């Protein structure tokens, strides 16, 4: 019988990661790990390094030092197989980044066909399936600009899901949306979490993070300042996190 990797093996692990933009040290020895099926929320002030940390996981930023392992790929090494890494990792951005000249269906089928060599008919079935998952089945043939922001973001999540990633990264995916549209996107992410998807999310939605995250990583000045279960949001131990959650960030 085939032996599966032990469940203690993390899907994502960062160890002592360093990253500077010029003289600005953005990540100063960041370490954390995400286990299979775990939901990790990266929180902190603007400029604390949380988005950079997330982008390092998918190698949109190259690290200056430290070690990053994602689904067995040594992301910190220059010879990392980027295309293999990015088939294992799905990423969703704040600005959706749907391809404007393609229909929603084409947005979704492009990568499975081009990267995995999937047959068109099979990819179209897949598109229908992932769109149903985010509640957008009727928008198959619409163009992105015909959708609301919340719908575009859900379509972007569906596009990512179609590649069947082992871990999903969310980079402030609701920051461009009004509260009502935020709600519909968060519902989709909640469903993904319930289905057991491994996720790392940068978010400013403290109430949401508290409800969904298995673990919170609070970043401050490029370091992991405080980490723990979601309960640290209600009973923080460091003055910085106390101040951060105390400034009205914690909506119920």
């Amino acid at each position, binding site marked *: 019988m085939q032996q599966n990797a032990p469940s203690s093996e993390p899907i994502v692990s960062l160890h002592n990661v360093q990253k500077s933009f010029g003289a600005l040290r953005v990540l100063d020895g960041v370490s954390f790990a995400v286990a299979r099926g775990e939901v990790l929320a990266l929180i902190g002030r603007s400029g604390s390094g949380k988005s950079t940390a997330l982008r390092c996981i998918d190698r949109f930023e190259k690290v200056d030092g430290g070690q990053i392992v994602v689904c067995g790929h040594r992301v910190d090494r220059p010879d990392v197989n980027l295309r293999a890494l990015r088939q294992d990792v799905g990423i969703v951005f704040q600005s959706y980044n749907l391809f404007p*000249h393609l229909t929603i269906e084409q947005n979704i089928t*492009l990568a499975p066909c081009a990267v995995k060599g999937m047959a068109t008919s099979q990819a179209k079935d897949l598109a229908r399936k992932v769109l149903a998952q985010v509640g957008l089945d009727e928008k198959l043939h619409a163009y992105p600009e015909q959708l609301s922001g919340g719908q575009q973001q859900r379509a972007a999540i569906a596009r990512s899901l179609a590649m069947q990633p082992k871990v999903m990264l969310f980079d402030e995916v609701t920051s461009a949306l009004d509260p009502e549209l935020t709600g519909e996107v968060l519902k989709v992410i909640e469903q993904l979490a319930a289905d057991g998807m491994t996720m790392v999310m940068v978010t400013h939605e403290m109430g949401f993070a508290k409800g969904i995250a298995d673990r919170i990583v609070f970043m401050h000045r490029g370091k992991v300042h405080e980490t723990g279960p979601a309960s640290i949001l209600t009973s923080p131990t460091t003055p910085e996190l106390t101040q951060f959650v105390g400034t009205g960030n914690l909506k119920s």
Partner: protein
Amino acid sequence: MSLQLDFPAVLERWPSFLAGAVLTLELAFFATVLGALLGTLAAVGRGTHNSLIAGACKVYVETIRNTPLLVQIFLVYFGLASLGLKYSAFTVAVAALTINVGAYTAEIMRAGFEAIPRGQIEAAEGLALSRFQIYWHIILLPAVEKVYPALTSQFVLLMLASSVCSQISAEELTAVANYIQSDTYRAFETYIIVAVLYVILSLVMRAGFWGLGLLLFPRRRRLGTPL
């Protein structure tokens, strides 16, 4: 002072005019297709990290944009001849026009490429698409869409500028006109007719580009904003 125009004397040469107009359109067609290819490659080349390729593309673009078309045509014409290579005037004209319009296309396409938001490329990279796939599926058409009016104007300009190919005896519209006016002594009438024919050719090209736009940009067709 009286102006006497005798169009019938010139118009009876209509088969020659027609042949010239058709040849001009053929020149424009081949130079447009090849120039669009060459220019797009040069624009991609200018954006690569390989400084040798980027430098070569820059030298090509700047050389062509800063020399007259007629001189370029002569350089190709006499250059090929002195290498002992014999091509028809038509082939030489297509080659010279392609080299010329390729440089302008490269600059326009570069603007189109630069107008693609960084997030589009990151999203494509995040989906594990290769560099070539990203250019082909994500960058190319939206870039063309952004610069389509500038691009098509350039190609219409090229068709009009092809009149200087009469200098290497390519039998295009202006060459035909030169011949007819020296034969009939009706220069003014001849060039009035030629001017009208160029206007018609321009309209034909613009109609063609409009149709091509409908094919290339189905989204604009669907949303009722065709280019």
